[in-house]
């Protein structure tokens, strides 16, 4: 007989780990003390780290870094300055932020931002250049539609 989700073993553990993951997702800009998080989830620090890594494939600290860098990319896309972005995502030092960003994204924040806006300009200038031909024939996708009714 199939079991409902709530009856799976260690269901309560999942709830706690997911809550900590969501906490990191929404508090990435703050100083997050992983000991405090583990305490709030009623785990020892090492047990917490092991469970978190089993589920997400990263330690909580690695996951926090990933979230911060992804948020930094989003803020750079909104044209915030690199210094502002550094502090907006919870880093204290510009050099550590740019170093980590470059290691993970493979481009420095300034190059990343410049390339993003260059692509945006290209999309604006030639939008159909970014759409496969099957979706939009050269002059627009209202013609030659595959989905038109027989007239």
């Amino acid at each position: 007989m199939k079991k409902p989700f709530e009856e799976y073993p260690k269901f309560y553990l999942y709830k706690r780990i997911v809550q900590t993951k969501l906490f990191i997702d929404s508090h990435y800009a703050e100083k997050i003390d992983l000991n405090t998080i583990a305490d709030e989830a009623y785990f020892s620090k090492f047990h917490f780290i092991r469970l978190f890594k089993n589920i997400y494939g990263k330690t909580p600290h690695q996951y926090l870094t990933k979230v911060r860098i992804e948020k930094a990319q989003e803020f750079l896309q909104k044209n915030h300055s690199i210094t502002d972005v550094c502090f907006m995502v919870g880093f204290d030092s510009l050099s550590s932020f740019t170093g980590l960003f470059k290691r993970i994204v493979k481009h420095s924040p300034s190059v990343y931002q410049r390339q993003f806006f260059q692509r945006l300009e290209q999309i604006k200038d030639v939008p159909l250049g970014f759409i496969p031909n099957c979706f939009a024939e050269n002059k627009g996708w209202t013609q030659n539609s595959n989905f038109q009714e027989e007239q």
Partner: protein
Amino acid sequence: MITKMNHVSVFVLNQDSAYEFYVNKLGFKVHTDAPIGPGMRWLTVCPPEQPDLEISLMSIEEGMMFKGAAAKQMRELVSKGTFGFGVFECNDLLATYEEMKTKGIVFKKPPTKEFYGFEALFADDSGNWFSLGQKKN
């Protein structure tokens, strides 16, 4: 020979709402968001670990790909949950299910062990449903 798929379309009722669902709830990445002309927008998103598969969120509007009554019929079919568009994968189904439920995503089937694997079914904001399976180790 065909080597891979790089685009797939999902028909949605509203692109703004679909953006909110796929990007802000599922955590997908925006690949291209381009206004094509009045009322036309090319919006594609990618699963976080699959940047080379663009899911095109196609708005069902009369005058784009659908003419006449076809748009109305298609909107009705989508909103009734007629279409299942694919199977997504995650590392841990129970954790993903718990997170998605916390974000208000509707499941048609909770995580269930089937003979073919461990899966759940969820619907997007338009009514399209997807299977969600756990990566096999």
